[in-house]
């Protein structure tokens, strides 16, 4: 039960936010974006934070999900849910295909390869204008309907997006606390050590890559239906970087950290708009500052602080509590 205490807090936050602040822009509009970003970040964190494999190209999978949904519903007239499944399938296939050769690379080589992959996928969105609409994007993507109930308002989307995000967090938490999660972390700790413990590192890296791709593609499909319009700009190299920053900002190898990082990085530009031209400068300074002074990430560093404070309080008030 203790393991899921944090999860219940997160659920409570998500449910209470629109009740306490009804119709608030930052909850029902920005909240949806946060939920999508958090879903991708949680998946990417499985790959990066836990397994230690960097990806600078995850926007590509987000895009594959979005474009599959967008193209299949607008051009082929598919049912939106069917298109969503097709998007997941497409992401799966692509991830499965490239994962094996790419994950044999390490460190900066892996960073470059994933970056290149992301750029290639982005070019494939931009260039075939007659299919994808090119840089002008793909418009008129229908919204989703759930049991005959159209998801067409911000609050409904808030419900769907945060619901899927919570599901993603729950799955990720389970995964991390399992035999598989241990093996993933072992790969991060020492590849050769993990191999000697009988972990098929090549296979498990591919699996977790696929899982993180599926998280991103799911977010992408939902994103396409929620926005009604998609264009390659939303799936560029910059977004891949943003995703990595979300994971690292929150704190690697912490699922809540990834959610936290996604929330911070999504809210930051919204609040920095008042600084106008200084926005870019401040964003860069914040990224550097956090990494230099809190290398564990915001979330992990802060939660460690809180734990320390609680622990020291306990020890002063009730020394016998320490066992």
């Amino acid at each position: 039960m203790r393991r899921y205490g944090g999860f219940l807090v997160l659920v409570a936050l998500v449910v209470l936010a629109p009740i306490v602040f009804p119709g608030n822009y930052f909850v029902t509009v920005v909240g949806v974006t946060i939920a999508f970003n958090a879903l991708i970040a949680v998946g990417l964190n499985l790959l990066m934070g836990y397994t230690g494999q960097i990806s600078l190209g995850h926007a590509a999978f987000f895009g594959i999900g979005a474009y599959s949904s967008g193209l299949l519903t607008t051009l082929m007239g598919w049912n939106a849910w069917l298109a969503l499944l097709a998007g997941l399938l497409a992401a799966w296939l692509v991830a499965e295909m490239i994962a094996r050769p790419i994950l044999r690379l390490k460190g900066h080589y892996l960073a470059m390869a994933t970056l290149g992959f992301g750029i290639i996928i982005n070019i494939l969105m931009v260039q075939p204008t007659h299919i994808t609409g090119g840089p002008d994007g793909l418009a008129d993507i229908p919204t989703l309907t759930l049991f005959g109930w159209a998801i067409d308002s911000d609050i409904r989307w808030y419900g769907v997006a945060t619901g899927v995000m919570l599901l993603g967090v729950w799955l990720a938490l389970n995964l991390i606390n399992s035999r598989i999660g241990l093996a993933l972390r072992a790969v991060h700790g020492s590849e050769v050590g993990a191999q000697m413990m009988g972990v098929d590192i090549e296979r498990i890296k591919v699996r977790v890559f696929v899982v993180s791709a599926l998280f991103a593609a799911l977010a992408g499909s939902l994103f396409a239906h929620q926005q009604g319009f998609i264009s390659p700009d939303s799936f560029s190299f910059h977004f891949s970087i943003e995703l990595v920053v979300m994971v690292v900002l929150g704190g690697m190898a912490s699922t809540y950290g990834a959610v936290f990082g996604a929330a911070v990085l999504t809210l930051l530009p919204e609040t920095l708009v008042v600084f106008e031209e200084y926005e870019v400068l401040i964003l860069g300074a914040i990224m550097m500052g956090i990494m230099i002074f809190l290398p564990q990430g915001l979330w992990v560093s802060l939660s460690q602080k809180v734990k320390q404070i609680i622990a020291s309080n306990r020890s002063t008030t009730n020394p016998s509590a320490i066992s």
Partner: protein
Amino acid sequence: MMNNTLKALLSGMVLLLSCATAQAGSEIKLGTFLAVTGPASFLGDPELKTLQMYVEKINREGGVNGRQIKLFHYDTGANPKKAVNFVKRLIKKDRVDLIVGGSTSGTTMAVIPLVEAAKLPFISMAGSVKIIDPVKKWVFKTPHTDKMAAQKIFLDMNKRGIKKVGMISGSGGFGKSGRGQVLALAPEYGIEIVADESYGKKDTDMTAQLSKIRAANPEAILNFGFGSGPAIVTKNIGQLGITLPLYQSHGVASKKYIEMSGASAEGVRLPAASLLVANKLPDSDPQKKVILAYKTAYEAQHGAVSTFGGHGYDALFLAVEAIKRAGSTDKEAVRTEIEKTRNFIGAGGVFNMSPKDHLGLGLDAFKMLEIKNGDWSIVE
């Protein structure tokens, strides 16, 4: 105790809120979202400066119908995803009365469903013809379309007897969209596109593409794009010793282009708004007075004027005029008045809107210009 404080706080907030809404009635809330930074900043930057300059001027002179204009602005960096959230913010949080903006076609297309659903008048400053074709009830735009540019260019080619054209376009939204129009319209004008090349946003050299175009033996080269790309293309053409006529699009309609391209820009033709050649217009031209006034005012504060700022000027005054005529900021009334715009003389041309035409500019709004001695001149 706790409860009382909370109640006091809450009632205070309610009071504040009601004050805010009461005051809101007295000012016109104008929302805008522009690409002030990022790859399309040369669009968004002059657009925002123009809006701010004239909103301040209008307010100084007593406002519209006695009401002050309050401008709400967000920088999209040309990112459609940001644009969607910012427009939602304008609609839900700032509760604006109407929206002008959307420097790029991508950001504009992304928000159309939102403004349609919110039933809010929206005047876009982006180029693509898709924005108003098919007509959307609440969506208008001020810049000439890429379709018009292509038509204007083809008419000029017809006059010069050019039949085979080599095209090179930027891979950004503007270039791609223009390329689509060129390919679609060429047959109508009896023109054959013999080469179709492109270049990326930050490419540094296009000689490879251009020598490929040269190998296809065109009679002229047409470049659709904006930013540094067209200037590099122009320089590279000079460098390769290609002497074919070069046509650019209205995407390069600023002095910066001539400055960057140097000597190679001589003889380049492009369709552009009269704004660029304000001084050279005959006094009989109805636009002359308006354009000169804008040009003088802008250049006094911000340096060389570009046609892009003009799109902002037109959007703002189309809106202001419509609000004046409607006598309120009632959304439906304002929308109807924008649609009824007749003979509005703007920076981009003379606008005549109708339920079937939410742009209201004719081909005559474009002048065919040629660069001579480092300056624009009008081709007759």
